[in-house]
């Protein structure tokens, strides 16, 4: 009973103090907030140790038990300790692991940067393959999504503007005037910096900016407001002790 109630009281009192400190940032609440923030940073630092312990333990057990894929676990443990060792050595020898001639930076430049970059770069291939297979005009919503995606992709690179400029040369004069008039009307209807590309007659960039600024931002706002309300509701549940899943069962 006590084991359960003490953490709930700590959470309630801490939250109350932090809320009061937000509205009254003067002594003693302001100082208390600073102290709590420092404690938070220290606890966050110790979670790394916890993470290293958990990761090393999990993979060492896999190595000792020779479970499937144990070799990868061994590589991970070796990489972990080699990185740690080189970091500590560089810290002692060069006063910082980030000194450009330190062994840690060698490891960083020639191992971590290429490996992470390669991992991220391979995503491009999977995205192209997945987009080609999955992006189909199956219904109205999918068609809208496809058109929006194409407009953003073409408007997001200089090629869009160049292709448009070249294309416009070959259009008959009445069509060209029609597009120009439409673009001007759009810019007048929406007197906003966001429509500057319409005025400049760079239509791919204009459509991209409009899509990002109006429909996309509206959807983003809706999601963020929902997230914020959800966060407030969850925080209140934790502060008031209604939500207790963070406590050990």
């Amino acid at each position, binding site marked *: 009973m006590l084991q359960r109630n003490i953490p709930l009281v700590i959470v309630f009192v801490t939250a109350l103090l932090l809320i009061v400190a937000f509205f009254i940032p003067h002594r003693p609440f*302001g100082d208390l*907030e*600073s102290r709590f*923030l*420092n404690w*938070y*940073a*220290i*606890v*966050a*630092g110790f*979670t*790394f140790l916890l993470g290293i312990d958990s990761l090393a333990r999990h993979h060492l057990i896999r190595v000792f038990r020779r479970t499937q894929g144990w070799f990868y676990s061994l590589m991970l443990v070796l990489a972990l300790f080699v990185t740690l060792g080189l970091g500590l050595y560089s810290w002692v020898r060069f*006063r*910082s692991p*980030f000194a*450009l001639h330190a062994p840690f*930076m060698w490891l*960083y*430049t020639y191992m*971590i*940067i290429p*490996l*992470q*970059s390669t*991992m*991220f770069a391979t995503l*491009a*291939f999977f995205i*192209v*393959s997945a*987009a*080609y*297979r999955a*992006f*189909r*005009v199956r219904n109205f919503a999918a068609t809208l999504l*496809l058109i929006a995606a*194409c407009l953003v*992709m*073409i408007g*997001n*690179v*200089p*090629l*869009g503007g*160049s292709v448009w400029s070249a294309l416009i040369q070959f259009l008959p004069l009445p069509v060209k005037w029609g597009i120009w008039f439409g673009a001007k009307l759009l810019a007048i209807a929406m007197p906003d*910096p*966001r429509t*500057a*590309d319409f005025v*400049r007659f760079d239509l791919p*960039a204009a459509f991209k900016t409009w899509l*990002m*600024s109006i429909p*996309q*931002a509206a959807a*983003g*706002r809706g999601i*963020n407001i929902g997230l914020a309300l959800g966060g407030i509701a969850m925080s209140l549940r934790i502060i008031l002790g209604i939500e207790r899943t963070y406590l050990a069962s």
Partner: protein
Amino acid sequence: MKLWERLATIDRRILYLLLALAVVLPLIIRPRTRIQVSEPVQDAFTAVDQLPPGSVVMISVDFDPSSAPEVQPMLIAILRHCFKKDLKVIVTGHLALGLPLAEIALSQVPAEYGKVYGRDFVNIGYRPGYVAVMVGIGRELRDFFKTDYKGVPIDSYPFMRSVHTYRDIGLLVDLAHGATADAWIQYAGGRYNVKIIVGCTGVNAPNLFQYYHAHQIAGIIGGLQGAAEYESLVGKPGSATLGMPAQSAAHALVIVFLIIGNIGFLLARRRKGG
């Protein structure tokens, strides 16, 4: 197999090969690219440009090598801009793996402008618990950063003696690939009214437009295109400008594939329906 079925089912190895060529060839040929500066990037540039000489800019390096091809050129271009304008720079970061990238940029750019560590810029390093750090700087920087990344007290650097809270920082630049941008906007911008510009990966840029239009951030540098635009504004084209033809070709290829795939799909559906 019929033509329309072939169009809808191109082997993925062919897609991979064509994409690789679309990326590699422009990097070799290096065609000229016309960079048109967009409004969010222009605003970010203006935010830096309007600062009086001697103002302090805090740059938070919140990306790691996976996003470096997109975001590192922004860091280099912004550093160039700051040093050209005689601004003082404080570099920090909330990703332990990001700070070496800052160190790489700081080993290259300041020398171009004759800037000296400690006099013109300082790297205060990384502290865990980014939300606490962001809120805490609003009260006193030294609560979290008594020393720089080398362990030297920050008060031993003359310009740092007058930097205590966000009030002493003219502009906050967050170069991010994740949620730290939202956190900076919500905790530093929302609570302490610090002026912020954000540079981020192309994937993250759409999430920031809502903040930009609500004037919660002064500008956005989004993706490689944003970085290339900033480079063109600074007047020193770099790796982002170099990468734009490759990105253009890759985007064009994806669009061509989407069109081909959908033509095949529609033809196949019409045949089946018929």
